[in-house]
Each structure stands twice: as C-alpha cells, then as structure tokens.
C-alpha cells in the first residue's frame, strides 16, 4: 500500500512541477532558516553545561541599595570566598576568578599584546571542567609564578603544545613558568581566557568588610544533598559576623546589601549585571528568534495547505473513485499525508543543504561558531528528517481531511466547484502570512530607525575625530602629552579615568554636607585632567573648569546637572560635598551629557581632577579630520618613543560608541534577513496560488476578452482579491507590531516615537510586493490568446 501511495504522490508531484517547486522551495527556505535559528538557540542554551559540576555550581552576586539607587553586581570582594567556604557547611568549596587587564608577553623580543588573562584560585581545574592537555590539574597553579596557557596561545608563542612545561615567559616585566597547557575554552562558556595565573599576592588588602563589592567573581560548589535556598541569607550573616560595623552602616546610611546564589547555567542568558566577566546574551533573543523561526516555517506550511486545498478539484475525482472501491477516509488521509510528508522531507533535506551553505554568513552575523556536522552528530540529520515528517503531517492534515471529506457522488459528478468554505479558509491563511510579513517589516524598520536615532543623537559632547589611547605612559605621561601637542593635526589632548562614552558605576559613596544628616548617595565618578572638558566641548552651565591657576583644585568638584538635582543643591557653587572624609568645593556644573548608552537615563556624575598620571586610564586626542592615517602614524611613533614596551593600541571614540549598540545592530540585521525570507516565502505561495486560480479561470478570461475586456481590467480582476487580503493583513499587523515594538523601545530611555508612516510604509511594501507577484501571473493569463483557451475547453 505504501508503495502505491508513494508512486501516486511522486507522479502527482512530478506532473505539477511548478506547484511542487514553489512548495518545496518555500518549505526548504523555511527549514534552512529554522535550522540555523535552532542551532543558534541550542548553542545559547548550552552555555556552561559542559562543566561536570554544572548543576551544583553557583555564583555569588550582590545587590546594593544606596538610598534608593539599586545596583546589581556580578562580583564580590576578594575575601568572601575564604570565609563562606569555612563558615557555611552547605558549601563544599569556593573558587575565585578575576578578569585581569590584557597582558603583554615579550618573547624573543617580539611583543604579543592583548593576552586575555584571568587570575584564579589554584583549585580552578578541579572546580571547572577545562581539561589540561599538558600538566597536572591539581598542582599546575600552586606556585605564584606559574601560568597555564591555552593551546592557541602555546602555539602562538612556541609553535607547539608539547614539551613546553617548565619554559619561562616574560609578561609585563615579570618572569613566569609554564606549568600547564589547557584546551581552548569552548565558545559556550560565560568567560574566556588565553592565560591563567594565580591571584597576585594582595598587597593592598581591603580590610573594610563593608566594602562587599569588588572585582572578583566568586563561585561555590554546593555540597551533595544540599539546597542553595538558604545560602544567600547565610552569606549575609557571615558578612555581619565578620564586620559588625556593617549593621550600623545599614541603619545609618540607608544602605543595604543582599546576596544571591546564581546557578552557573543561568549566567549566560539571565544575568545583566555590572562587573560581568563578559557581556552576556539575553533569553529575550532566544525567544525572539525562536518565534521568527516558527513563523517562517508556518508561512511555508501555509503555502502547502493553500495549494493543496485550492487544487482539490483536481483530486476530487480520484477521491471519489477510491471511495467507491471501498477506501475508507482513513486510508485516503494516509495517502494524502504520504504526499505532504514526501514534499516536506524533500524540502527538509534541501533545507539542510541550504543551511550548510549559509552557515558561514549566519555565523558571522550572529557572532557564533555553529556547525552542522552530520558525521559527528548524525542525530541532527535524524532530527531534521523527523522535523520534515512532522511538518509534513501538520501541513498535510487539513488538506487531507478537506479532500477526503468529499462525498463520492458529488466528486464523481464531474464539475466540482472550488470555493465556499475552502476559499475563506485559504484567504484567512493568506491574511495571516501577510500579517506576519508586515509586522516583521515594521519591527525591522523600527529597530533600524531607533539605531539610526541612537547613533546620530546629540550626546552633549563632541565624540567625533577623537582617538582613544590606553594610558601606558604613566611616568612619561607629561612628556608624551607635550610632544603630541606640538603636532599640527592634533587639536587637543586630554586624559581621564574612563572614556566619556562609557562611564560605569564606580560604586563610590558620596556624602553631601548641609543636607540631611548622614544621607548617602551613589554617584558616578570621573577623574579628568585640565583639558578634558574643552577637548570634548562639554559646556559648563555654571562656574569654571579645573585650572592650574588654582592650587587647591584637587579638592574641587564639578557636578553634572543630574547630580545637582539628585543631591537637591540649589546653589551649587556654594556647596561643599563630603567624600571619604574630605570636603570638596563645587566649582562648576556641566550640562548633562550621555556617558552611557541611550538605554540609560543620564545619571548623576561628579568629576574630580586627577592627582597623578596613574589616575588616568585613557588618553584622548582630538585630531583634525584630514590626514587621519598620518596623525595615527605620528601618534604611534611618539608612543614607541615613550613606552617602547607597550603595544600601541588606538580606537576611535565614535566607533566605540557605536559598539555599545552591537547587539541591537546584530538583532537588526538578523531581523532584516529573516523578514526578507518570510516575505519571499509568502510571495512564493502567492505566485502559485494566483497562477493556479488564473489557470482555472482561463475560460472566463477568454470570454471576457472576446467580449472586449482590456488587459488592465483582467489584471485588476485577478489581482484585486489579493490586494484586498493584504489590506486586511495590514489592519491586523498594525496593532500587534505596535504593541511588540512599543515594548522593545521601552528598553531605551531615549527612543523614537512610533510613527504612523512606519506602518504605512510596511503595508505599502507588502502591497507592492504582492501586487508585483500577482500581476506577473495575472498579466500572463490576461495576455493569453482567447481563441486557444476557449478551444481547449
């Protein structure tokens, strides 16, 4: 029986090649898109699951509340790990990881800059599952001067991974000994490294336990048969025990801290805190992409449903005959399902090929290394086949029931009318397809429009033509600045603790005098030199800039407008502000400028004058627009002169600013591409539907033409129906897209308003595309010679 099903399915598909082809192409695009998105989603969900202890590893995170300002932090101070290990029985062991500045290795007079380095406790390789290729995981990090390289770095430095244990390398002036070679960390880990070393001996240990935040990621391994539920509370109790003062703090200063035990497996998708080791992804993207994948496959399946029901009259007679031979509905349903499954499985296999073909561009777009290795994971092939069968059944079910419901008497009577309920159902599906397409167009447009807005918004400072350098000059800083200043293409040079495009929370408390007793505020802090404000054209609203003419400007402070509001200061220039038991005189107020991405409101900020070159991490050089390469070459030459041991790194401030929106830009591009695919698939369906209906109405068109109908009127006749459907789709898509995009825009404090014309453009695009699609087929039907079409009847 199955053989007979397959035979007739194959012959039917072959006979109506055009319809089969549009169905298969549409479905295979759907499969390819869904497959790539599925790989993406699987990868996102696989983060950190490769660790043997993944289920019982947690990270300690903190939540601070400074007088209403809440900040969540992924790190703790250095000490918590040591005490909770001892004090809390449910904790089996702890581990600390700290991201270090990128180090520079000197090897045979060659410099290898930007080595991703982490400092860890010596039980690192037992705690996490990062296997060692060479060396002993138990002892590799026992010595303070021992380091472990990754395979990649070992090959870079030594051209091999074997036989390098015991060799020494020089890193930032210190000699280390290689004690292990680790496999490269998998891409689906929440932090990466090229080099691991032990924590440096703590010379400036923070004794103040109130300072529970820090720059160390603290992980713990839960003991067997224990629950992590009570651990946060216990950590807090331990904290209070070791630092009784903290309670006083909490009472007096409206300050509070809470701890959390965050499961390791949640970090990648559910954690957006300060001090993350690396920027994490977001479960939102996983959901969004999954929905898009689903929508595309649904749109493609709808094409199949529509064509099968539209062409039902062709099969009605066969159904009738088979029923008279004693075929029950069940057998007939099986037969039609076999056909849809055949189409779907062929499409799935083609989709697999397409996915492989477009894997590389997609990887680049999504910043992933996804692979479709069928030899390594034959399960993928099986899953694709199963998906093919599944989609085949889903897409075939309605047509199968629809076709096999025919009463044999009617079906055999010959002229079988297509229309009625079947037509309404088809129309509803076409409307659905176009609603989805239009909604996706709107979403893509809004994403692009918002990104455009964000990138061109006046930030309150001039971020163009600024070259950023890491301050590696330290002692030679003054000399470097003086030399650079002399170059004619350099307009200005300044230095600051952080770059103005991204000033993150310093978590330094600021006490304001003259206001309520002991009121504590958390403000962002920036250390600058005299030239900072003029270099960035940041206007002063009140007062003056720091100046060498005033000797005690090291105790002066400049606030932004947001800070004066937050601190509720009416006459800022008379205000004194206390910080770390020192009084600062406010000498100026700058207008608010955006020192974070536009996701954030402009926060209160205080600016201090740096006291030495060590206060500055960045050097900012404002340069002339012309001959930028020449200027960069000059800067590099000067750099080499003053800091020969440090690699020359530069970046442009405006590019750094744009990279704040990298994930949104990525999202925008992926949206754009999948929207295009959705529309393409929907239009494929429309092409075959119109072609079929035109074919059915050949005789009517012939008669109309004989009676004097023009080509235009025939095209209008055939296209009009579909354009009406797209208009209805527009009405449905508009509110849903509005709702979704409004939500997305809420994520930006500074955002575009949704405009009516965005919806109009999306709708018009869909109408235009549909019209082009439909009219091509209609025109073909309308231009056909009526004599031919009438004779054939």
């Amino acid at each position, binding site marked *: 029986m199955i053989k007979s099903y397959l035979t007739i399915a194959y012959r039917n598909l072959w006979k109506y090649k055009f319809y089969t082809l549009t169905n298969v192409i549409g479905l295979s695009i759907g499969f390819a898109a869904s497959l790539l998105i599925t790989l993406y989603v699987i990868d996102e969900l696989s983060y950190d699951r490769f660790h043997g202890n993944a289920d019982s590893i947690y990270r300690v995170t903190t939540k601070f509340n400074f007088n209403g300002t809440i900040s969540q932090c992924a790190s703790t101070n250095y000490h918590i790990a040591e005490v909770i290990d001892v004090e809390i029985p449910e904790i089996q062991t702890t581990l600390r990881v700290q991201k270090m500045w990128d180090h520079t290795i000197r090897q045979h007079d060659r410099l290898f800059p930007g080595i991703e380095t982490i400092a860890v406790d010596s039980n690192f390789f037992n705690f996490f599952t990062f296997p060692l290729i060479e060396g002993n995981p138990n002892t590799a990090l026992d010595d303070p001067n021992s380091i472990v390289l990754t395979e990649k770095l070992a090959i870079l430095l030594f051209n091999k991974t074997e036989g390098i244990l015991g060799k020494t390398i020089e890193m930032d002036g210190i000699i280390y000994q290689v004690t292990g070679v680790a496999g490269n960390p998998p891409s689906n880990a929440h932090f990466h490294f090229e080099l691991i070393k032990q924590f440096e001996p703590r010379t400036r240990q923070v004794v103040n336990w109130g300072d529970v935040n820090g720059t160390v990621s603290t992980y713990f391994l839960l003991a067997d048969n224990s629950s992590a539920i009570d651990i946060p509370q216990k950590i807090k109790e331990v904290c209070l025990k070791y630092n009784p003062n903290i309670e006083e703090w909490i009472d007096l200063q409206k300050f509070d801290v809470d701890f959390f035990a965050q499961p390791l497996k949640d970090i990648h998708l559910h954690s957006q805190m300060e001090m993350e080791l690396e920027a994490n992804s977001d479960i939102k993207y996983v959901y969004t992409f999954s929905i898009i994948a689903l929508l595309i496959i649904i749109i493609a399946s709808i094409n199949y449903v529509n064509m099968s029901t539209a062409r039902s009259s062709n099969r009605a007679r066969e159904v009738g005959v*088979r029923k008279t031979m004693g075929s029950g509905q069940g057998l007939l349903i099986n037969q039609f399902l076999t056909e849809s499954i055949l189409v779907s499985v062929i499409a799935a296999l083609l989709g697999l090929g397409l996915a492989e073909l477009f894997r590389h561009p997609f990887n680049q777009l999504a910043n992933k290394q996804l692979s479709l290795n069928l030899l390594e994971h034959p399960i993928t092939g099986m899953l694709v086949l199963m998906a093919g069968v599944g989609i085949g059944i889903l897409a075939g079910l309605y047509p199968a029931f629809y076709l096999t419901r025919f009463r044999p008497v009617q079906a055999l009577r010959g002229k079988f009318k297509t229309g009625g309920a079947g037509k309404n159902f088809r129309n509803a599906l076409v409307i659905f397809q176009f609603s989805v397409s239009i909604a996706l167009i709107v979403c893509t447009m809004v994403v692009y429009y918002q990104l455009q807005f964000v990138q061109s918004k006046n930030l309150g400072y001039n971020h163009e033509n600024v070259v950023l350098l890491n301050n590696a000059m330290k002692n030679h800083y003054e000399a470097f600045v003086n030399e650079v200043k002399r170059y004619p293409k350099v307009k200005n040079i300044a230095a600051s603790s952080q770059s103005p495009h991204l000033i993150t929370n310093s978590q330094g408390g600021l006490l304001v005098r003259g206001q309520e007793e002991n009121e504590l505020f958390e403000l962002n802090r920036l250390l600058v030199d005299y030239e900072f404000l003029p270099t960035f054209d940041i206007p002063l609203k009140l007062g003056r800039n720091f100046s060498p003419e005033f000797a005690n400007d090291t105790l002066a402070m400049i606030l932004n407008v947001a800070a004066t509001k937050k601190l509720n200061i009416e006459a800022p220039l008379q205000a004194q502000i206390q910080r770390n038991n020192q009084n600062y005189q406010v000498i100026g107020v700058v207008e608010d400028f955006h020192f974070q991405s536009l996701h954030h409101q402009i926060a209160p900020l205080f600016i201090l004058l740096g006291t030495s070159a060590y206060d500055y991490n960045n050097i900012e050089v404002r340069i002339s627009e012309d001959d930028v390469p020449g200027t960069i070459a000059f800067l590099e030459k000067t750099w080499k002169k003053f800091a020969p041991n440090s690699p020359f790194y530069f970046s442009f401030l405006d590019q750094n600013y744009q990279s704040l929106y990298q994930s949104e830009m990525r999202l925008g591009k992926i949206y754009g591409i999948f929207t295009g695919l959705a529309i393409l698939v929907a239009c494929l369906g429309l092409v075959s539907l119109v072609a079929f209906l035109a074919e059915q109405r050949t005789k009517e068109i012939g008669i109309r033409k004989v009676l004097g109908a023009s080509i235009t009127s025939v095209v209008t006749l055939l296209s009009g129906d579909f354009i009406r459907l797209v208009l209805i789709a527009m009405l449905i898509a508009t509110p849903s897209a509005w709702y979704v995009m409004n939500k997305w825009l809420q994520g930006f404090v500074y955002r575009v308003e949704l405009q009516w014309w965005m919806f109009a453009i999306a709708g018009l695009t869909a109408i235009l595309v549909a019209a082009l699609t439909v009219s091509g087929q209609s025109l073909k039907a309308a231009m056909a010679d009526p004599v031919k079409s009438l004779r054939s009847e």
Partner: protein
Amino acid sequence: MIQLNNIDKYYSSKFTRTFVLKGIKLEIKSGEFVTIMGPSGAGKSTLLNIIGLLDQPSAGEYLFMEEPVHHFKERKRSELHKHHIGFVFQAYHLIDELTVYENIETPLLYKGIKGKQRKAMVAEILDRFNIVAKKDLFPEQLSGGQQQLVGVARAIVGQPKLLLADEPTGNLHSKQGQVIMELFKELNAEGMTIIQVTHSDENAQYGSRIVQLVDGMIRSDQAVLPAHPKHEG
C-alpha cells in the same frame, strides 16, 4: 439480493420538498441483469447511487444481502464496497496518475490481497480483456473504449457480487459500446448480478429485465423478451 421498500429521496428547501425518487419498491435477485431506463431527470442515477451505497435514501428501507444497509455507517459501507460492489462510470474515472496495471490493482490493495495473489489476479484480468500490452500505459494514452475496458476490468477484478454501471457506453462509439455490453453479458452469464443505467434500447436488450423510471417513480418493470427485434433511435 437487493430489496428496496418505499425508498424516497428528496431535497428540502424552506417550504417545499423536491422528490427525486418516490415510493420505490424493487427487488433484484442474485444473477439478474437489470437495466434502468427513463428520461433525463427521472432519478435513474440517484437510484443507482442508492443501490451502490454512494447516496442515502431520505426514507424507506434497503436490504442488501438481507442486511438493513440504510442504517450503515461509512465504515461498514466501505466494507461492502470493498468486497461486494464494483462500479463502472460513464466517464471511466480512471486515476490519471496510475498506469493501467496500477488502476486495476488498486481495489485489490484496498481489499488487502497479498502481493503474489494480487499479481496473478491482475494478470488474469489483463489477459482476459486482451490488454496485456497496454498495462504500462497511462489512461490518457488510451482511446475511450480502451479506457472503459480498463474501467470494467478494475470494477470486476475483486470479484464483486454486484456490478453497477452508470451509462457505461455513454461516451463511446457504438462499436466500442458493443464490446463492453458483450462483456457484461458474459459476466452475467458467469453469475454476476449487474444493474446498468442507460438511454439506449439496444444496450437494454443485453439485460434480462428493464425497469422504466419516470419522475422518480417506477412506471414499468418487465422481463426482456429473447430475440427482441432491434429498435432504431
């Protein structure tokens, strides 16, 4: 074999009932060759469809092989189609996408007959109808007469007890029609019960009994006299 008691078939609209068949009483015994005749719209095809269980009567009782089939659900009707009834249509209704061989084989597939026996049965029919050479052709490659031959072959391959034919020669030349009618006569002689609907007096002569239907009612029901002189027109 077939017993129809007071069969009505009507279509209801708001205030009126349009009768297609009214008070049909008919008994057909095993081995008969019955011709149903009558003007267009008399209800011939409807009657045949009811007998063939493709349509259901609005009222009345239908016993097929002593069973009250008017109560039967679709599944049981399918069983009867599978095992006891064969159909021949005016428009042949071969499945375009299947070859001659496959068309004839299809009812056997539904009957669940195993491969070897199925092959033998199809081969026998092909042989008997002299269409072995055409077995791999598709319907569109055959003439109308040949298609109808295949249609009859398909109808009887499962050895049904009852063969129903709705204007089997309506689309054929008279020569082709004769071939089909001779075949029917032969099948009837072998014991198959046949009921045909036709406009042609000539074809009716092949049967043993003629039922005249006018306006949904039986007007006459007579045996065919042997060696009846031929009518024209």
